[in-house]
């Protein structure tokens, strides 16, 4: 057999390749500069502009932005009673929605992760992901139809004879409203529906990671299924719960569409932001208002991190 080796090609691409092979830093720079440039200018720049604007104020007489740094707008957001109502209302909704999602998601996620056969599991995963990716507006609109005065839900309740109960519910101050589709409880239902997949998926993933041997050990040591669930599964599922709660919390906190479409008269943070930058043209106030969810979410994230949410994401 001949020992002559096949010659290697040469060319500019090859020399460029060798150049980058010897200098991995250059290669990294080449790859990262375009996306970082984009992100830096478009996204980070916008965030900085937003933050900057929250330190400006609007002149009450000319309705123009005064470019003088001041804390007036920010303090206005946290001190004015009307504004504090808004923040409190939004926060309360976010917390209750998160809790409700957790409760509903638990049985579904547990079934999906631990009990379903392989085919069922795939079906469930697709079944949960599909609504998550379906059009947001379409889902909100669907609920508007369902909750409407002559819609499905009232028809259902009517045929069961619970119409009276519904009316009483709607009379309740604080959660009621003129109709289901413009009440806090209606909003609550829609929020829970929308964010349910975001809670189910991380929870199911965390539950799946619980090794079977732990459950066997627990049963072996004499625990009933309920005790095993409470003492072994639930604590280990906590990171998944925390991860899911990050989504439900922050999504509810910042949403402005659902309160407008299915909402009661009371304002939410998102609506304030939307309204202030639109008709009122008060961008500093809008910016100041949007700082609130950022701060709240960061605080929540640090709480969730301690519960192990980041390992479950």
């Amino acid at each position, binding site marked *: *057999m*001949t*020992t*002559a*080796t*096949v010659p*290697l090609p040469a060319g500019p691409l090859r020399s460029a390749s*060798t150049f980058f*092979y010897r200098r991995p830093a250059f290669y990294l720079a080449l790859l990262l500069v375009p996306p970082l440039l984009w992100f830096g200018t478009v996204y980070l720049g916008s965030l900085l502009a937003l933050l900057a604007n929250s330190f400006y104020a609007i002149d009450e007489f000319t309705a123009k932005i005064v470019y003088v740094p001041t804390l007036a707008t920010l303090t206005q957001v946290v001190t004015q009673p009307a504004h504090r109502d808004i923040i409190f209302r939004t926060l309360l909704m976010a917390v209750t929605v998160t809790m409700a999602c957790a409760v509903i998601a638990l049985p579904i996620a547990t079934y999906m992760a631990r009990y379903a056969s392989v085919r069922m599991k795939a079906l469930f995963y697709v079944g949960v992901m599909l609504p998550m990716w379906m059009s947001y507006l379409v889902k909100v609109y669907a609920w508007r139809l369902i909750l409407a005065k002559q819609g499905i839900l009232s028809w259902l309740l009517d045929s069961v004879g619970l119409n009276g109960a519904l009316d009483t519910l709607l009379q309740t101050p604080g959660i009621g409203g003129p109709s289901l589709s413009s009440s806090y409880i209606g909003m609550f239902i829609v929020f829970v529906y929308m964010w349910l997949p975001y809670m189910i998926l991380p929870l199911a993933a965390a539950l799946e990671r619980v090794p079977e041997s732990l459950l066997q050990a627990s049963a072996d040591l004499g625990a009933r299924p309920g005790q095993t669930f409470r003492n072994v599964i639930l604590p280990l599922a906590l990171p998944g719960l925390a991860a899911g709660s990050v989504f439900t919390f922050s999504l509810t906190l910042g949403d402005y569409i659902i309160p407008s479409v299915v909402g009661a008269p009371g304002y939410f943070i998102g609506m304030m932001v939307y309204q202030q930058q639109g008709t009122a043209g008060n961008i500093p106030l809008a910016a100041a208002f949007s700082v609130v969810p950022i701060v709240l979410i960061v605080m929540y994230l640090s709480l969730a991190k301690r519960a192990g949410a980041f390992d479950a994401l």
Partner: protein
Amino acid sequence: MPAIEFRDVSRFYGDVRAVDRVSLSIAPGEFFAMLGPSGSGKTTCLRLVAGFETPDNGTVLLDGKDVTAQPPYERDVNTVFQDYALFPHMSVLENVAYGLRVRGRPRAEQRSRAQEMLELVKLGSMGDRRPAQLSGGQRQRVSLARALINQPRVLLLDEPLGALDLKLREEMQIELRNLQRRLGITFVFVTHDQGEALSMADRVAVFNQGRIEQLDTPRALYTRPATPFVARFVGGANVAEGELAQRLSGSPAAFAVRAENVRVVERGASQNWRAIPFRSLPNLQEAMSCSGTVVDFQYHGATSRWQVKLDSGEMFSASSIEAENASSPSPGAAVTLLWSRTDAVPLVGWAVTEREWRANSAKPNDSRSEPGEA
């Protein structure tokens, strides 16, 4: 002109010295083995030859040329990977032809040469299959064919036989050896199995903690280990060091004695050594002995092996062939171990020559030839 040469090569990962000032030279056409436990640096050295790693110190030369800064695609070296690394989205034939494809050879040439190589490894009919459809042994041959198509001067093999079962492994050992003789190119292969290294290679470098402890022919490594590590790792020999060595040989320098040269005698049995059915023992004054208790006895069919815990605490092993095993002391028995002085091999890597050692133990020098050294 050596095919591969390392001059004082080092490679660090943070504080860890994966390769620590290694120098070696491999002759063209040699079947060379790098042997050692995991983490000893042998695989890193292989990768340094291939170009997947760059040394932090020292030079790597191929055919006398300094290739330290050359990327792997510029080196005249090809590798057979431990996990075969076959490209799943190409057929077997396309995998083998890859080396020619990236050199821009015409399609027809790619196909015919690839087919040739497949025939060489006896897989001529498998060209159209996908790697996933092949067995482990077949995939290994494909990666071999793929690595040889460029007719490299050097072929590197990274633990090539590790994933194969025993029978397949033995077959492949013979085939690789024959292949290498036919092609006449330099083979360098990495393994942690000393049996493999000893049976296939012309010379073996024994690695430990980033350094080469001994580089020698298989026979020399086995009969004349230079350090305690080599004695234990390659030969499975017993090593006497420090106090034990002093007591047994009169010199503190370490020495090794292979298990098959150690006889086990139950204490309290007849003191007539002739009654022992082993190969004849030289007279008592030429024997070293120590006492201990049998801890374990293993029957391997052709041979049997004892693990004996010496009274001084060390673990020694003795082995014998089936034919010589009439009565064997069982675990718990108190025994005496005996071996001839000439079977004790001083570990001359320990800064003492064999002559000095023999002189110290006050025995006549034996006239065996000196081993070759790295």
